């Protein structure tokens, strides 16, 4: 692979963009204040970064004369698993009462959960009587 070929150059640019997205994701991971915001940064790098790197690799092998469907399967499975893990991490963090960063402006879920537990305790109290 050399840089004089325009096709290979554009493929290199695509892969470089993928790595830049991964890099920005790691920067966000270090700089952002709490678990939830860090999950955003990681989700971003793992979606866009992986998308660009794998599409670039796919194009490279396509011009080498090899159609690799495996790389698309890779994109598919990352897109399937990364949101599930992000959701589970955030959900378990919220359920184990990890505080939101102090900049946070609202928390509808906490109110809803409190209302829920109050209702449940009311029901439990009525059952006790």
């Amino acid at each position, binding site marked *: 692979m050399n840089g004089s070929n325009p096709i290979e150059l554009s493929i290199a640019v695509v892969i470089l963009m993928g790595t830049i*997205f991964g890099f*920005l994701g790691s*920067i*966000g991971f270090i*700089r*952002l*204040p*709490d678990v*939830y*915001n860090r*999950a*955003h*940064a990681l*989700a*971003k790098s793992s*979606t*866009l970064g992986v*998308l660009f790197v794998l599409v670039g690799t796919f194009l490279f092998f396509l011009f080498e004369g090899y159609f690799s469907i495996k790389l698309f399967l890779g994109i598919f499975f990352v*897109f*399937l698993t*990364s*949101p*599930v893990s*992000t*959701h589970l991490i*955030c*959900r378990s963090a*919220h359920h184990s009462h990890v505080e*939101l*960063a102090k*900049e*946070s*402006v*609202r*928390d*509808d*879920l*906490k109110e*809803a959960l409190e209302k829920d537990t109050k209702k449940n305790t009311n029901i439990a109290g009525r059952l006790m009587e």
Partner: protein
Amino acid sequence: MAVQVLINLFIGFLWMFFQDDWSYISFFSGYLLGLAILFVFHRFISTKYYLFTIHAIVQLILIFIYELFTSSILVIGKTVKPKINIKPGIFALETSLQGDAEVTMLSLLITLTPGSVVVEVSPDNKVLYIHAMDIPELSDAVLRSKTKFEKAIKRVTRQ
């Protein structure tokens, strides 16, 4: 949809065997013929013609890629600024979608777009609790993309 694809494959194979010519080209022409036959007869199977469903899926993917890029640019702009000025928070979002499959698809798509993570789904599948990185800017963006996603998902799953 699965039934229609099976019938279509069957017609393709049948055409290939009728021609007594085991090649991709005869199979493919049979498959195209099957598409035409299914288009005429699909209302007897009482579901939507499956090419329309595939078209809806492609449209959903295109909408998703567009949202992915626009919201990524927003989030990256927030993270690389020298002083991080964000107002994160969790907000409730009501959805008109019904059923596990539709709600799962919507929350997958919302979680995949940067800057918003579905933290919890209410037990009755009606409200999604979404953590957004910057409430004043992103909640509008999430709302807009939610309505787009909902429309596209309904086109995929409903008749």
